[in-house]
């Protein structure tokens, strides 16, 4: 199968700027061992931590300029995988392989301009331009304007058509089991190119956390910045984070005095912290909660999400009856593509609660 040539590669995908893909990958970069699953709808990258936390980055097909997936013609699974892989339950029909995630990210940033996080790249460019005056905000911003103007006429206009500042283009291909993941990268047509081959491993069975197994008891949609700030403000020595959801107060009276709809509580070495979020549309977009919900999680695990939260706009926070937490972070793409088709990727974190919570 694998020696049949280009067409029969299991996976081929290309993107003109890896920045967005990088942002998704970095969101789950707290564990080196990552399982990549390819389906006809896109890629998912999953990492697992302490048999408790499962983080998956979904990179949809639409994000790539070009994406083709031809499942391996394994006799055992061929019959099933000929259908589009749309079933939520992944039973082996997607092609799965394991790669060292750190290596993959290092390769993708080989030209150095993929940025540590996509939203910061522009910012960093200004800073390197005016490193002398970094301490002076005002001066810095005026210089930024100048440097913009200077480079504006030359290449600014044409760059706008190609997505602002120069990115690294990438084409990845995977021939099949036993073959490396091949990345071909270039900054521009005339510049240097790089080919990286990353060894792949057979996918080990991952932790299975099915959120929908038991009914959802708390469902909140909020701006990611609230959660991001909360996690960054908590004392890193905290061991556990308790999420408390309260039902809306009966009637429409005394909202202020009632218990907060969402409370994050953490106890650390030097004291405790509570963050209360009222049912304000600016804070909690929706909050569905029938009765008080209270579950504790290992703070370190929840904090794994803070990197992904940095690039995310909205978060859906759900807790089911068993206490399993599901955080879905929407990672917005830079610009809409393929018409109204929503191709925003997202990262999902699923985390088991601490047992001893009463």
């Amino acid at each position: 199968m694998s020696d049949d040539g280009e067409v029969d590669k299991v996976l081929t995908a290309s993107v003109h700027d890896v920045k967005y893909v990088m942002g998704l990958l970095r969101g789950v970069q707290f564990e080196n061992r990552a399982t990549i699953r390819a389906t006809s709808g896109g890629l998912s990258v999953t990492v697992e931590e302490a048999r408790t936390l499962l983080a998956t980055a979904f990179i949809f097909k639409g994000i790539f300029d070009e994406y083709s997936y031809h499942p391996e013609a394994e006799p055992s699974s061929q019959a099933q995988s000929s259908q589009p892989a749309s079933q939520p339950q992944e039973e082996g029909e997607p092609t799965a392989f394991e790669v060292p995630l750190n290596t993959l990210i290092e390769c993708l940033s080989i030209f150095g301009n993929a940025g540590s996080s996509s939203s910061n790249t522009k910012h960093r460019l200004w800073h390197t331009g005016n490193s002398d005056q970094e301490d002076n905000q005002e001066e810095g911003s005026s210089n930024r304007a100048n440097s913009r103007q200077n480079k504006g006429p030359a290449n600014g206009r044409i760059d706008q058509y190609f997505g602002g500042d120069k990115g690294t283009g990438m084409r990845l291909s995977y021939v099949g089991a036993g073959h490396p993941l091949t990345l071909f990268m270039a900054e521009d047509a005339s510049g240097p190119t790089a080919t990286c081959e990353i060894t792949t491993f057979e996918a080990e069975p991952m932790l299975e956390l099915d959120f929908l197994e038991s009914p959802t008891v708390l469902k909140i949609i909020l701006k990611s910045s609230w959660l991001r700030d909360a996690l960054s403000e908590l004392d890193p020595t905290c061991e556990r984070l308790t999420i408390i959801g309260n039902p809306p107060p009966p009637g429409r009276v005394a909202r202020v005095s009632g218990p907060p709809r969402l409370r994050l509580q953490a106890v650390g070495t030097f004291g405790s912290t509570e963050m209360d979020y009222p049912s304000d549309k600016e804070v909690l977009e929706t909050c569905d909660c029938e009765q008080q919900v209270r579950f504790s999680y290992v703070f370190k695990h929840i904090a794994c999400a803070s990197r992904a939260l940095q690039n995310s706009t909205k978060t859906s926070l759900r807790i089911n009856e068993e206490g399993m937490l599901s955080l879905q972070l929407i990672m917005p793409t830079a610009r809409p593509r393929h018409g109204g088709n929503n191709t925003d990727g997202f990262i999902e974190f699923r985390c088991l609660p601490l047992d001893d919570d009463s």
Partner: protein
Amino acid sequence: MQATLDASALKQITRALACLSRYGDELTIYATPDTLALSSTSQSQSAFCRFKYRRQFFSRYSLAHAELALDADEVVPAMGQLQTKNLLSILKHKTVEKTVEKCELVITDGDAPAQEEDEQDSLESRLTVRLHCKHGVVKTHRLLLQTPNSLLAPAIPDAQYHSRLTIGARAVRDMIEHFPLQRGPKSDPQLIWTFNEYDVEIRGMETIMTGKTGPQLATELIISAEEFDRYEVFDTPLTLSFHLREFNATVGFAEASSLPLAISFTDPASPVFIDLSGDLSESLSVISTSGLGAHGGERGVRGELGAEAADQSRADDGSGVRRARSMPPPSMMPPPSLPPPLSFRHQAQAQTRLQSRPPTARPPTARPSSASAARAREPLFLPSSQPTELEAGMHVPGARRGQGADAEPLFLPGTQLSQAAEQAIRDSGLGIEGMTAREFAAMLEDDGEEVDFGPGDADWEMGARVREGSLEIHDEIMEVEFEPTQLGGGTKVSWVSVCGWVFVRPID
């Protein structure tokens, strides 16, 4: 204690905490009905910083049980101690500045019952920081408070010999920026300041700065005294050296708050005091000098002379007092023989200092009671402008000894005594010589031989007059003098023993 801050006040507090965190790891909070004081002492007790905020600074300020107390003096102050960085990391967080509209600080006493319904009763004292953000988000941080291990504050040794400088923070920053100082947590640069009559000379401390990187640039900066808004240096030339870590923190705070620095100091062995006064807040920083200032050659004659006295006291009590030039051989100068006209001549030179001198006619017996009353009212800190407590101690050493627990010096009894001795001798120039002699006999009784020398730890002006008599003991003591000088340059801790701090514990 409950205090509510608006966003701008919170910013000031955060800035103050950032400054305090450069002084020491532990932050002491002390709240009286009228003021909230935040202070920090460095681990080696070589620097101290305190910010005081009047109740008007807060949008709301109240001390629990303050209404119940019949007398304002009986209100129990709220106090506690915590790691500065824990509080600072909460308040300095980048989202705080943007979103916080109001901040509440509450000190909950451990033995008092919890007043809020969602607050558990506990035996531990807590500082609750409640940040009210936009959109009704409330962030509550509870930090455990320890019992402050010391409520000591340095008192200004004596008011009459202070040299006073006033200068804008920006100007100081410009001076310091000329020195190529190593950055990083380990480097602790020191500068030597020589105050002359018309200019100030600043040099880097080469011995400290020369590290593995080999010889470095030796920078020397001379600036005109006109750079200072106020320049009153007593007894020029005067050389001081102190570390910059804490000094820079204060300068940085002053710059950010656009307050001028009011610097005062007495002699090279005593700490430097920096006052920053705002409308509703005041700050006092005390930085000990390293006492190495005398290695400049410009004071050869006097330095020689002073060496012996320093040797004497150090050899005797082992406290490492270094007064490189200040003291004549003590045995030559029994206090009764002090020529009073000399003191008066000196007063004429320094009119302003004279004004701050307390009237010597006050009956000594009245002192202890007034001092202890003052202590009860203002227990933690001596206001920088109030030397009464110290004087009381010096004029009535018997009473002072009796209150040992109350007013014992924090460290360096030896240093403290010689400070006190100086003060008393100066006062003795005004006609209380006989009393001083007795006092010092009493004060120094535990350091055997020094009883004789004690009174001699006197003004250096007088030392100059009796120069001839000192020559005989001059040589043999010289070597003693240099040994600790080298030791003193090594670490910060060691020169704590050099600085002439007077710590007074106000309450027990």
